[in-house]
Each structure stands twice: as C-alpha cells, then as structure tokens.
C-alpha cells in the first residue's frame, strides 16, 4: 500500500463513528491534562488504558495518541496565562509567553502557539507517513541482535538526555528492568521474584506503576506546596488575532520548530521536552533581536510550541515502524497495544494496516479538532484552572485508585500503585528522572528476549553478536553518547595547555 492509498484507507477507518468519537475524547482529555499543572499525559494515558478494554485496539490507540499530542496544545495555555507550565514540554513557553501576556498580547501568544502547534503537528504527521513505512521495511531484516542493540541504545540515550545526572537515570533504568522481570519468565514460564505472591506471577503491570509514579506522585508534590487559586490573565475573543507583523515574525520559527522537533522526536529520550529547549535556543541564536527574548519575543513562543507537536509525531515513528518506544508516552502506547493483544513491530503496518493508517489519519483529524478546541474555546479550558486544587486532587486520587483496581480487580495492584506513588514522590524530591523507570519496565522483557535469542543464535559468541554491522553502529553510538560528555572537558583542557 503506498502512502496515498494508505492514507485514504486510514481516513475511512478514522472517520468511522467510534473512532471519530475516540479521537475527539482523546484530544479533549489531552487538552485538559495539558492545561492542568500536575497531571500530565502519561498519568492520563495510564488512567484511561483500563477504559479502552471494551474498545478495539485501533480505537484505543487513536484515543490514547490523542491524549499525547493533545496535551502539547493545552500545556501552552497555562504557561502563557498563569506562568506555570501546564506540563513539562511547555516550560519554555512560560518565559516569553507570560511576558507577552503581561504586555497585553496574551491572545496573540495563544493564537500563535495554537496555529504553530497545528502547522507543526500536521507537517510532523506528513513526515511520519513517509518515514515510517520504509523504516519498517528496512527493519524486517533486523534479527534479535539488532533489536537488542536498538533497545539497549534507546535506554542509554534516554538516560543521557533526560534531566538529572546520568548515573541516577541509569539506576532508574535498572529499577524499571527489575520490575519488568517480576513474574512469569517469558521463555520457560518459570515464576521469578514473586515473593510467594501468586498474583505477582502475572508480573508488575504498567498501569499501576505509571499511575503511581506520575499520578499519585504528582498529587503528593502538589499537596506539599498547595497554594490558593492562581492569578490568571483574562483574554477576550477578539484579542486572539495577532497583527500582521506578529504573524510575519512567528511563521519562520514555526517551520524551523517543526523540522527540529520531528528530528528530535526520532531520537530516544523525552523528545517533546528537549525539542522545546532546542527550538528556543535556536531561535534566540539566529534572531536579529536576541535581546527581546525573555521580554516577550513571539518567536520564543512560536518555535517551541511548534517543536513539541512535531516531536510527538516524530516519536510515533519508532513505535509504529519498529515496535520500540523511545519516550515514556509512546511506551504507554506500546503497553496499550500489548494489553490489546497486538504484536508491535515492523510487520504491524502490513498485517494491521487499519491500526497504522487509522492512527495516522486520526492524527490529522485530531490536530484540526485541537485547533478548533483551543483557539475559540481557550477561555473555557482556562476556567478549569479556577477549580479548587483540593477538589481536583481528590478526584485524581479517586480515579487513580478505582482505575487501577478495574484493570485486574486486584488489591495488589492498589498496593503497587500507592507504593509507587510514595517512591515516586521521594525520588522526585531527590531529582531522579522517572521516565527511565517506565521505559525499563516496558522494554525490559523485549531486551531480555532479544538478548537470549541473540546469544542462542550466535552460540554464545558475544563478539559475533556485537559485530553485526547495524548492531555495531548502534552500540558505537551508544558508547559515544556515554563517553563524549566526559571527553569534552579533557579536550578543552588540552587545547588550553597547547596554547
């Protein structure tokens, strides 16, 4: 199926009643959690995975993906109006977005970030549509050693690019891998590390872990420094139109943000967050008036807000083409696919075209819906911020608890949820990055399976496994990422000495 045919098929899938509804619901929830500081897309996806059990895998994925890219739209609203990032990928938008709002240009900032998100999101999907199929085709030649190297390098990249120190992130990867080995061992069916608990034989589920770390953990953080209602800048509908001069300044950063965001999305790591920082730095560097950055430069809103949207499209590429998620949010999507009994991998596109093309087409529709939801209705979403925190936090906790229980009707999952919530709170305070835990848990079983298959295939000859060309290149990249940051100061010092 070529791209045009595939897309036409995808639209037919996406426009069917339940899928359209799922798409709308997904982007609506995404916008909501984007607007609300505290709960982010990962917690929300974990929360809603149980409710997708009754739906087909395509519908489920359409809805969950909608939450992911929808959150990128909503996040900017809070950043601009309240100077508090609605979620992590909108931290940068606070800098110039809030300054614009203080100067009475809040409407323009919101419009530019909405339109930028739409432009970049759509361009990102076009790129996704053309990049993913050939990649999947190439990946058909991958054997277990290549998959092992790819997964391992993905985890290494994530640990190096994330926030906080690398050694802490590696420790979190290890923690995730540890959780992933609990339960029935995939090859022989032997129960491992179940501590005598029969229920643990099924393994540690993704939903309670993600909901604990990202839902309960965040609520505890908020409980600690609860404040009154945030001070919000009001916007009128007719103020939403930026001037011609503002459009002219905002448009090139949108395109640059779209390009940079998509490329960064392909690299393992918290792509959406990194892409916003990269775009901001880029815009400041090439700007003719860099002194305006920090004082309300429209480029500083347009660039990053575009970048985080195309980054989400980029991050979908490895998930849909290779079956390997490189970001925590796409790891949630993979988890959902597995729960629905879909085998992710390069064959997904040819064997389950309705999933791949349906999701791609739904992303076009979702982006359009988001533009409509976020521009005229921005005031409605912003008013959610006026809900008292105690009510919101109470409801989030209740939803986390019942949602977790509903997955397996298991009390043990509730204990895991609460345990992970407390662990998540403490680790957050100690500046550990939690994304590697999720990825370790999801990728662990894959890493183990491919490692054991590779060793078996190469008859225990580790070198012949490592030295297969693709595998070797990937592993070298991984080593480079670990070693290079340590070499830089050495090289600098040498340069100084020779001078």
């Amino acid at each position, binding site marked *: 199926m070529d791209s045009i045919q595939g897309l036409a098929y995808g639209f037919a899938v996406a426009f069917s009643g339940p899928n359209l509804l799922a798409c709308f619901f997904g982007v609506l929830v995404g916008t909501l959690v984007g607007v609300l500081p505290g709960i982010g897309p990962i917690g929300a996806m974990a929360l809603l995975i149980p*409710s997708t059990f*009754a739906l087909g895998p395509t519908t489920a994925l359409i809805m969950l993906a909608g939450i992911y890219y929808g959150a990128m739209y909503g996040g900017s609203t809070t950043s601009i109006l309240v100077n508090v990032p609605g979620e992590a990928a909108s931290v940068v938008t606070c800098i110039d977005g809030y300054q614009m709002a203080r100067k009475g240009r809040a409407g323009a900032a919101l419009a530019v970030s909405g339109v930028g998100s739409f432009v970049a999101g759509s361009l990102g999907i076009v790129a996704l549509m053309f990049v993913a199929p050939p990649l999947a085709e190439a990946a058909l030649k991958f054997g277990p050693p290549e998959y092992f190297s790819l997964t391992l390098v993905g985890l290494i990249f994530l640990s190096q690019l994330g926030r906080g*120190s690398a*050694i*802490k992130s*590696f*420790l979190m990867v*290890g*923690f995730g*891998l*540890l959780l992933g*080995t609990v339960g029935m*061992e995939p*090859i*022989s069916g*032997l129960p*491992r*590390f179940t501590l005598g608990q029969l229920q643990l034989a099924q393994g540690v589920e993704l939903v309670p872990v993600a909901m604990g770390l990202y839902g309960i953990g965040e*609520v*505890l953080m908020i*409980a*600690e*420094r*609860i404040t009154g209602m945030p001070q919000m800048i009001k916007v009128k509908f007719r103020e939403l139109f930026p001037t011609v001069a503002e459009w002219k300044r905002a448009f090139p950063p949108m395109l640059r943000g779209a390009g940079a965001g998509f490329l960064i999305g392909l690299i393992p790591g918290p792509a959406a967050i990194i892409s916003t920082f990269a775009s901001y730095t880029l815009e400041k560097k090439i700007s003719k008036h860099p002194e305006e950055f920090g004082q309300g430069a429209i480029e500083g809103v347009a660039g990053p807000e575009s970048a985080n949207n195309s980054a989400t499209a980029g991050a979908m590429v490895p998930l849909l083409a290779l079956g390997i998620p490189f970001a925590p949010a796409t790891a949630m999507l993979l988890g959902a696919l597995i729960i629905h009994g879909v085998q992710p991998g390069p064959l997904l596109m040819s064997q389950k075209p309705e999933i791949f093309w349906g999701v791609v087409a739904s992303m076009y529709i979702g982006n359009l819906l988001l533009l409509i939801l976020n521009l005229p209705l921005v005031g409605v979403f912003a008013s959610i911020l006026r809900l*008292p*925190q*105690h*009510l919101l*936090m*109470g*409801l989030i*906790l*209740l*939803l986390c*608890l*019942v949602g977790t*229980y*509903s997955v397996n*009707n298991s*009390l043990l999952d*509730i*204990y895991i949820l*609460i345990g992970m*919530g*407390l662990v998540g*709170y*403490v680790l957050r*305070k*100690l*500046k550990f990055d939690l994304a590697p835990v999720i990825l370790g848990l999801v990728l*662990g079983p894959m*890493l*183990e399976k491919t*490692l*054991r298959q590779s*060793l*078996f295939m190469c*008859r*225990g000859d*580790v070198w012949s496994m490592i030295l297969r060309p693709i595998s070797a290149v990937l592993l070298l990249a991984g080593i480079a990422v670990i070693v290079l940051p340590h070499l830089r100061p050495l090289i600098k010092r040498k340069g100084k000495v020779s001078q």
Partner: protein
Amino acid sequence: MAIGALPVVCLAFLVVGGAYLVGSFYLPMGTVAHPGAGFFPLLVGTALVCLSVPLLIHSLKKKEIQKEEEAFPKGKDLYRVLGVALALIFFAVFLKPLGYGICSAALMVAVLRFLGLRSWMKTVLISILSTAISYYLFAFVLDVPLPRGFLFS
C-alpha cells in the same frame, strides 16, 4: 541535617539490588550460549549494585546535598503530604473489609480537609457525591466488581 535523604535511598537501592542479585542465583542460569531464566536478572542486579555504590559514596559528600535534592517539607507542609499518604494507605488496607463506599468517602474527606477545604458541610457533600458518582460509573457502567464491604454485602 547532617546527611540528606539521598544516601538512604541509595542504600535502599543497594539492598534491593543486592537481594535481587542473590535471588537471581536461585534461578536456572544456563550457559552463555543457552541462557536461562536467571541470566538477565544477574546482569540487571549487577548493574543495580554497581550503580548504587558510587552514587552512595558521591551522596555522602556534604556539599552535594543541596545540589542533588530538594528540601523535604517541614511542619504544616509535611503534615499535608503525610496526611494524604496515610489516607491512601488507609484506603488500600480497609478496601476489602469496609468496602468501596466507606473507603472512598473517607479518602475524599481526608484529602479535602488536608488540602484546605474549610467548610465541613462542603467536605461531606463533595465526598458523598464523588463516591456515589464514581461507584455508579465503575460498578454499573463499566462493570467493575468493586468491593462492597461487610455492611452492604
């Protein structure tokens, strides 16, 4: 505070990693050419131990405390966090015997009060309402068999 919380957490990871490593030896290890169930856990356990030792040593240096961790809350801030945490634990422990209705209402009351809702009237009203709606939604619409507890069974 002489030492921060980071060394304690590192030590916990070391202990857990060590126990996990020991546990992996009780599983069939296999050979390199034919790795068994304990092979991968052995690698993961080794990595955990090897990572937590240097982090532990690093964290014991005094000047690192401020850089590597946020201060834990004190006084009222601490009570709020502990209150919410205890309410959660209460929910988990008593869910089976007391049932969803009582536990979720109690959780909501606790969370609303701890996080600053002054009026008792509103607290009770919101708690009962949210419990009823969530019970209806999950038990009847989504068919989740929520525990009813001894009072209602």
